[in-house]
């Protein structure tokens, strides 16, 4: 994942509702409490308690689509690292401040504030998303939704693969995935 981050993804939409918690929603409390930080383990359990089929069947390139206030609660990075480990994109009507900070840090490929999507994407729809431009093509509905992409200032971190990789590329000496 330390290579180039893809600006676009084509995949299935996995839809989630409003007010999804970070700890206790995106990631089990048990993982947070016992301090599990291995991305492989976190990825396996990503959003599992809410949708076991997502944890089992989603593939890299698929896209999580959520309602308002995604990732509420504590500022713990197990949740964002779990999403990252799945290699999926993320589009939210809105995202909580805490999760937004962590999501940029983890380098999630995302459109965090997309009120335009409300009512226009269903679970299972095929999406073709350009995260850099904010353009979402809903292939199932044959419709295009234009959203506000991340500003350049933040895209720099995401394009580098997250803040740790951004630092590593800018100042570091070793190669490889700095998150592991």
């Amino acid at each position, binding site marked *: 994942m330390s290579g180039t981050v893809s600006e676009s993804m084509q995949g299935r939409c996995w839809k989630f509702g409003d007010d999804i918690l970070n700890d206790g929603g995106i990631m089990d409390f048990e993982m947070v409490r016992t301090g599990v930080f291995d991305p492989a383990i976190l990825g396996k359990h990503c959003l599992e308690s809410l949708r076991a089929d997502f944890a089992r069947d989603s593939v890299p390139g698929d896209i999580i689509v959520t309602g308002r206030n995604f990732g509420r609660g504590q500022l713990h990075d197990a949740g964002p690292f779990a999403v990252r480990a799945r290699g999926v994109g993320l589009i939210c009507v809105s995202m909580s401040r*805490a999760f937004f900070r962590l999501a940029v840090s983890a380098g999630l490929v995302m459109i965090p504030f997309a009120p335009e999507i409300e009512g226009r994407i269903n679970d299972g729809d095929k999406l073709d998303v350009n995260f850099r431009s904010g353009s979402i093509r809903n292939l199932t509905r044959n419709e295009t939704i234009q959203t506000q992409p991340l500003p350049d200032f933040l895209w720099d971190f995401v394009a580098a693969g997250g803040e740790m990789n951004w630092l590593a590329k800018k100042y570091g000496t070793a190669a490889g995935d700095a998150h592991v």
Partner: protein
Amino acid sequence: MGATIAEKILARAAARDRVTPGEYIWATPDLTVAHDRDYPRYRQRMKAVGLHKIAAAAKLVVSIDHRPYSNDAREIETRAWTRNDIKEQGVGTFFDLGRNGISHNITVDHGMVRPGMLVITADTRSPALGCVGALGIANGSGFIVTLYTGKTWLQVPHTIKVTVSGQARPGVLSRDISTHIIGTIGGSKADYRVLEFSGTAMEAMSVEERHTLCNAMVDIGVKGAIVVPDKVTAEYCRRFPYATPDTFVTSDTDAHFESELHFDIGTLEPQISLPPEPENVAPVSKVAGQKIDQAFVGSCMGGKIDDLRAAAAVLRGHKVAQGVRLIVIPATYVAYQQALEEGLMQVFAAAGAQVAIGTCGPCCGLISPLGDGETCISTSTRNDPGRMGSPNSTIYLASAATVAASAVTGMISDPREFLK
């Protein structure tokens, strides 16, 4: 147009004349704070890619607060590594065992957080530091960037002005007021915002009580919470003389607030957060009689000296009910020493409480985690199912007085019965 406290603090930290809500800036924090769970993890990630040096190590505070008592093999190894790394890097302040405390409290108990400062932490609860007129912002894993560069990127937040007036009735504590406020504002209005508190009820609060109030705002998503500095802040500054003169940062009269909220707490009764989240609020009377298995007085939110005093006032001359565990944890060694001097620890011992010092403990299930089907009433931060142990346990959040009263009766109880 004028600027708010947060805008002024951020403008100074970004070496700018002014900043505008919504824009992204690079800012240099005046103080940075980490603890035993985040520091080693971030440092080891840095070292793995050849980023060895901490920038501005002198401004960095590290405290042992999450796992002071762990005997886990990985923890033992990590602790030794941490101590060595802290020494090597010349970290400004290290609160090791015996002098430790929860990072959000020990920095205030030592007078290290000053009015007008920008404080950046890794851990969630740093908006609490607004109790002395500083801007505390939590950055999670983004703390790594600050460790290496000495700077942080931030989006400038909007500020909401919150006026709290009225005189609290006896038995109604800062925690009750805080709980009432988050329950009223709810989960989204304050997200990304800085709340700026003033009013007669705020003026009547100690630094510790203000810490509780600012801390509680974290759960409605704030970026920061600041109490307008005043006489109480000035007294705090005098208690801990500082190398450079303090400057109180206040909002200009023509500053732009996104909105203004008013609370009158004169008729408020003790409040409680019901499962499954802090902003699900009701008066204690609504759930009085609910049986409990554990009671906890502690955490960055509810383990300060004022909380310990409130718990002891209820517990004095009483015993914890049969079949109930009461855990009391002063948030810092400073609060512990003060509680000893005031005879509060003797009250806890006589009541039959389990005691630890300067650690988060049950708040995140690290001491006495809840079992399946158990119910706890706690002064700690959050009540998501599973936070304190089993996902099939139930957590209520309330003031130290309410928690202590409930520990004595074995069921959720209004503390005013004990204060007559």
